[in-house]
């Protein structure tokens, strides 16, 4: 009788261990859903900071050029206004310079917009690529990007991997 009871107990223990292993394995293999604060990831990504510096220096060069042309135009305009007789040739030349200035200004604005778009696309492409690699490595089912406009209204803070993800993408960007 005692032997039978012991046997039943042993089977019970074995079943409990087996169930625990199955549950443990299931939990270990379960793919997790995490999220990052997209704006923070973007702003703290080293690539963004570098390209922003590039963009600012290019924009500054263009602005300096336009400022100097504008100043020259203002001085010429002032001289024309102050002088009593101005030849048609000087006026035509002045108008042409003004037209050239506005054309160049518009060109620079378009180039700035296009460069900013190109840089933004490059940065997001890179973030997506690194997210893909990191997500696969960590076996995540999804990495959601939270923005102010996103449709996710609540997310548990425990699933927030923003800080860790920023560290990973900056490290990957350095080739590590």
């Amino acid at each position, binding site marked *: 009788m005692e032997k039978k009871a012991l046997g039943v107990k042993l089977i019970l223990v074995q079943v409990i261990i087996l169930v625990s292993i199955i549950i443990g394995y299931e939990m270990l293999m379960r793919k997790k859903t995490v999220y990052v604060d997209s704006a923070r990831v973007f702003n703290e990504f080293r690539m963004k900071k570098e390209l922003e510096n590039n963009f600012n220096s290019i924009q500054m060069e263009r602005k300096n050029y336009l400022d100097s042309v504008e100043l020259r135009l203002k001085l010429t305009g002032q001289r024309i206004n102050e002088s009593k007789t101005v030849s048609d040739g000087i006026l035509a030349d002045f108008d042409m310079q003004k037209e050239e200035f506005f054309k160049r200004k518009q060109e620079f604005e378009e180039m700035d917009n296009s460069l900013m778009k190109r840089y933004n696309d490059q940065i997001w492409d*890179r973030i997506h690529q690194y997210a893909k690699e990191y997500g696969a490595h960590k076996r995540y089912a999804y990495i959601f990007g939270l923005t102010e406009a996103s449709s996710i209204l609540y997310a548990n803070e425990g699933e927030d991997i923003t800080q860790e993800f920023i560290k990973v993408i900056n490290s990957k*960007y350095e*080739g590590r």
Partner: protein
Amino acid sequence: MKADNIPLILIAVLSLSIITFLGCSGQKRVSQEEYITWVNNAENGLVQEQVVGDYKFSFQYLPAEYMALKELMASEIMPTKPVFDSVLNNYRGLQYGVMKIGALIEGGDVLKQSITSEAEYFERIQYYTTIVPRDIFIVKGNDTLNCAMHHFERTFSISSFNTIMLGFENNSDSNDQIVVYDDQVLGTGKISFFISREALSNIPLIEF
């Protein structure tokens, strides 16, 4: 402890230290074939890969010894130590690497991938044959080591990747190295490859 035993103990400790030092110095000696295999093995840290956008970039650090050995192997000259040393002298002073850029789209050609005009195709050829050294460099500690020589191999769509052989300035630092390719034509942005100090110090010596 007897005073007579002290010299013996000192000798034993010294011998043990020398053996330990030699054992831990990291640079093992391998045959010529093993050396080539070691350098080509990505697990040893001299080969780095990255996928960005539609392109796959890889960089392989090539020690001067590798270059010399490859040259001798290609010319089918028996690489004895004196011959090897004389060839190696030609490679000293620079450090070498090979960068491969591949198109991920099947049948893709790096020079043609995502281009919108024929002019863009020629612009890429011009870039890779002449301008690219300006955009590839090594960051080692506080130094930037410029690309001193390069050779771009065209594959005429036979292969899905293009190869650029590179030679960089060298310095005596034993720091980690970050090889930077600041792309200007593919639209990927900057790509970095990290070659660790450990990987460099683990490069084996060639046995003759």
